[in-house]
């Protein structure tokens, strides 16, 4: 029996579930949107990737020297590998080197999270996306959770991935996985620290993004926030000859926490790590307070 299916509007036959995890779709969309433009990805993730590769080779060379085997670089002796071997000779302690590398990477994470986080709420407001979101069964906390997951995704990659890769390389390079036995706990601690670092700075960045209407303004504001807190903490510390003033800078606190979590040297910071945790959690709580207030206004103005 012939059938025609020419009706222009086809009613929806599927079911409309009460999916509480609907906001994950918003997070996925956020990540998809951010990865569309390739250039920023290359600029922001290129250098850390290269640094990770080189540093992994150095760790490999270090363990090879310890085991008395002369390291054989994959593509035959090249100037780069000679330098790496030379450097490996002066390395004191693998774990400490990993810590220092980790710190260098976490500074780079600031930039990554600032770039991806700045536009998340600012561009939504400028382009009126909140009109579309809040006409949906999406609660304010759902919206914020999705935005936070997006920035955590990029921050996490930037800070956790390098540390993990190097730990894995160290594990395989160390003689019969000695690294895993002695320093095995370093891997979970790296992941934990990376997530904390991305979470804290991600929250601050989102709060700044919700205060401005344009991505560029949010970027400048985040730079100013970072610049001024660091400058103030350094000036006060020098003036008062008291390094506890370094606690005013978020980034110094994170280094202190890193020192404690990854058993690294704690340079000029000798205060009790609980203080750093207090400051960091305080700043994160303030960021989330700003976020909830701004999103409440965003929903009403939808």
């Amino acid at each position, binding site marked *: 029996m012939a059938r025609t299916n020419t009706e222009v509007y086809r009613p929806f036959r599927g079911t409309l579930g009460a999916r509480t995890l609907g906001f994950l779709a918003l997070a996925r969309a956020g990540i998809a949107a951010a990865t569309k433009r390739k250039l920023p990805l290359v600029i922001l993730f290129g250098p850390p990737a290269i640094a990770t590769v080189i540093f992994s080779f150095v760790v490999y060379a270090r363990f090879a020297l310890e085991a008395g085997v002369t390291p054989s670089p994959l593509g035959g002796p090249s100037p780069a590998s000679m330098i790496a071997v030379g450097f490996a000779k002066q390395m004191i302690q693998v774990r400490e080197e990993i810590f220092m590398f980790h710190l260098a990477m976490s500074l780079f994470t600031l930039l990554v999270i600032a770039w991806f986080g700045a536009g998340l709420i600012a561009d939504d407001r400028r382009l009126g996306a909140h009109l579309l979101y809040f006409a949906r069964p999406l609660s304010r906390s759902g919206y914020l959770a999705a935005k936070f997951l997006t920035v955590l995704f990029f921050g996490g990659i930037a800070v956790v991935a390098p540390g993990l890769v190097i730990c894995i390389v160290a594990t395989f390079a160390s003689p019969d996985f000695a690294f895993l036995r002695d320093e095995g706990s370093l891997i979970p601690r790296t992941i934990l620290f990376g997530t904390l670092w991305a979470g804290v700075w991600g929250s601050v960045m989102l709060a700044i993004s919700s205060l401005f209407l344009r991505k*560029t303004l949010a*970027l*400048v504001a985040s*730079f100013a926030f970072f610049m*001024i807190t660091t400058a*103030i903490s350094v*000036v006060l510390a020098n*003036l*008062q000859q008291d390094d506890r003033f370094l606690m005013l800078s978020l980034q110094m606190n994170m280094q202190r926490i890193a020192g404690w979590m990854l058993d690294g040297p704690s340079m000029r910071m000798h205060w009790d790590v609980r203080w750093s945790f207090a400051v960091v959690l305080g700043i994160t709580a303030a960021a989330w307070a700003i976020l909830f207030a701004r999103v409440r206004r965003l929903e009403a103005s939808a």
Partner: protein
Amino acid sequence: MPGLAASTWLLFRTQLSRVWWSRRALACLALAAATPALAWLVAAFGEVSGAEIATNLGWLLLLQVIVPLLALVAGSAVVTEEIEDRTISYLFSRPIPRASVLLGRWLAALLFVSTLLAVAALSTAFLASRSAAPGPAVGCGIVVPLLEAAVLGGAVYSAIFAAAGVFFRHPMIVGLGYAFAIEGFLANLPGRNQALTVQYYLRSIVGTTGSDAWREVEGFELSRFDSATSAVVTLAVVLVLFLAAGSWRITRREFVLSA
């Protein structure tokens, strides 16, 4: 039809009353208040001498961070604000020379920035002088150069960023790049290329006219100093050059607003 002077005066007077009541002004107030607040804190709770507070905070925080940032926030908006708010069509359909839009609004921003920075410099010095700790008094040798460098620095920086607003689409980012990346980098290089930074001339003014208290500030005595007058003259020339370039550009350029 109003000439350059008349229309510049008109825009200056109107903008003057508006520049104080915007969110941007709020940000500037917060920036300006940072240094004096710190000076009060350290004077009240620290055991550091007033002169040391004034010179350290004055140089390391006020002149190197607050002056460029405040001038950036206020200066880069001189023309960009009208473009982003898309109200520039009203001004550019009036029988006035377009340069008066840049000059008139810049003068208002200049008065705003100079007032804030002058108050910041004076209050920092005053609050620092109340410190109980022994040490040299916060005399004119500290206050005058700080005031002069802060106001002159604010003026030059705001002119540079106002001109950037006419040349570039994102003057804030370009300004930030210049003030903190380029100047920061060049300032540390030995030799003549320090002369390309505004900071060098501010340091010359403070270095030659200030009292010895300034010398103890960490990293202050690095470079060779020009004389104070040649520094001031150079800054004045830089200011005029940037404003002239901005005026020429704003007259020639078409401002096509996105729909």
